[in-house]
């Protein structure tokens, strides 16, 4: 499915990766407004730790470096601190574009495997779209045990105090393990999400 989408995108945009980003990525039409001043790169708290700053990614998009961009794990590390956005002299919605590129890469199946933010996002999405509410207990267990029983127990022990704290302050209930609470009209909620996805897919040209 994902690889089909990638093949479809490649056929559709050929070598025009900038146009692909403009049409398919959230706020992607802003990329061409970047004047490569370097302020976002110099402002990002992740600066020294990731390979591709927003400035660099925007240049790579314009240079048509499709694989390098979509396979980068830099945009997955964006913490949405908005430092770059408030300083950008061209007012690019950089944070949204970063998440947009990440989402698009995931959609096409090109995002790096075992990227922690990506794994968490997938688990979180499944978790909360089930009932319309986040189920902390299940979310926690899924994340702890995603690397196997042994690793899960280790992690559980390391995080014990946080977990107990959440239980004590009622931020988490052990009964959630049996399905947990949800919104009143779960079916209606799920239909709404489906509809939104349908509209978005059409808008982005994934479907007709």
């Amino acid at each position, binding site marked *: 499915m994902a690889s089909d989408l990638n093949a479809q995108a490649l056929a559709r945009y050929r070598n025009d990766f900038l146009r692909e980003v403009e049409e398919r990525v959230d706020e992607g039409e802003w990329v061409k407004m970047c*004047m*490569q*001043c*370097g*302020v*976002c*790169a*110099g*402002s990002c708290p992740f*600066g*020294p730790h990731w390979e591709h*700053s927003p*400035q*660099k990614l925007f240049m790579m998009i314009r240079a048509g470096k499709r694989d390098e961009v979509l396979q980068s794990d830099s945009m997955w590390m964006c913490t949405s601190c908005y430092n770059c956005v*408030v*300083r*950008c*002299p*061209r*007012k690019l919605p950089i944070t949204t574009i970063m998440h947009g590129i990440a989402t698009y890469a995931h959609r096409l199946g090109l995002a790096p495997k075992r990227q922690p933010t990506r794994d968490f996002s997938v688990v979180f999405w499944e978790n909360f779209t089930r009932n319309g509410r986040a189920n902390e207990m299940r979310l926690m267990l899924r994340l702890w045990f995603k690397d196997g029983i042994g690793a899960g127990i280790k992690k559980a022990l390391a995080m014990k105090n946080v977990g107990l704290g959440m239980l004590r302050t009622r931020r988490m209930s052990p009964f959630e393990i049996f399905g947990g609470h949800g919104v009143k009209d779960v079916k209606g909620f799920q239909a709404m999400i489906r509809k939104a996805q349908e509209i978005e897919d059409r808008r982005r040209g994934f479907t007709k």
Partner: protein
Amino acid sequence: MASVVATNQTILVVGGGVSGMTAALEAAECGKQVVLVENTATLGGRTSVLYRYFPKLCHPVCGLEINLRRLKGNRNVRVLTLAEVTGISGTRGDFTVTVKRSPRYVNENCTACGACAEAVSTQVPNPWNYGLDRMKAAYLPHAMAYPQRYVLDPSIIGTPDAEKAKAACKYGAIDLGMAEETLELKVGAIVWATGWQPYDAARIQPYGYGRFPNVITSVEFERLADPHGPTGGKILRPSDGKEAKDVAFIQCAGSRDENHLRHCSRICCMASLKQTQYVREAFGDGAQSTVYYIDIRAIDRLEDFYARVQKDTTVRFVKSKVARIAEDQATRDPILHGVDTEGYHRYANRHDLAVLAIGMAPSVKAADIPAEVVEDSSGFIEAAAERAAVFGAGCATNALDVNRSVQNATAAALRAIQVVNRAARAET
């Protein structure tokens, strides 16, 4: 106070900087009657507080002197200082203008002997040095001031200092009874040349201007280099008075920025290139200037100057808009953070002093002019709008260097002359 005679064939010029003086003189030398209204105590505007002019690095007093000589030799220009236009009514060829004049407390008898300044003790911030130092409350704005007449700061009126000044004056020039007055003038055409002001640097939060003493603006740096400035021409940094040999210039501070001024201020690349030569002049081969830029805008013949500065071994260029400035708390050195876009290297560079190449904003926003004018997206007067009541000139219309301001002001004078000529023909 002598009354001002004006008719609908008179041209009013508002703002007495290089643009306003040029417009006034061009019109007057064509035989037109001109009233020149300036809101400070002297003509000259912002160029009179620059140390040197690019590209030839000559002293601004030279150009100012030529204009003043033209002015003194011409009987057609009436100069009103400490005056402001508060209202304009009517249309082209037939305006009525109200002008508010603030008291100077010093009359024509003044010989600029300076005895009054000796006598008073009160000090006020010195606007001609951008507030970097203080001056006596009886003062001559600067050495080139025109008229060469002292001023009493209104803050001492009614205090013993005012009486001391009066007692010190041997020429009977001090008149403490002067009061604000309002004049009404008939004029045929108006040239608006109120110039520019530096953008408020404190609003560029990541650069720490106002929080870090060793982050200053380019207009302040002009004063540091000037022998008439607060340091007597020595480039000393504000925190500790140490020589600032290693100076960083930060381009586009407040310009080309949707959060501040949208426009390119056009002159600040050249101004910083010029200022690197002040550092070299002061410290020779021991100087170090670093220019942080997005791209250098030195166009036409100015590019030769850029090429010359590039060859100077004391000047380094870093292609990067600085992201933020921090301060070393012990030494108070500014530390510049950013990414060099040629190679994407992160840097944290320490300097003695950081100079913000501050953007130029209109000193009076076009929307605040009491007449119909069209404002552009930066607040300047939109050029050549058909219906506009006033003709913009110089930096009131855009960020311009002196050369372009003068050309622009000459064009505005020509337009104004056409209007009053038409008014004259209609009357005969």
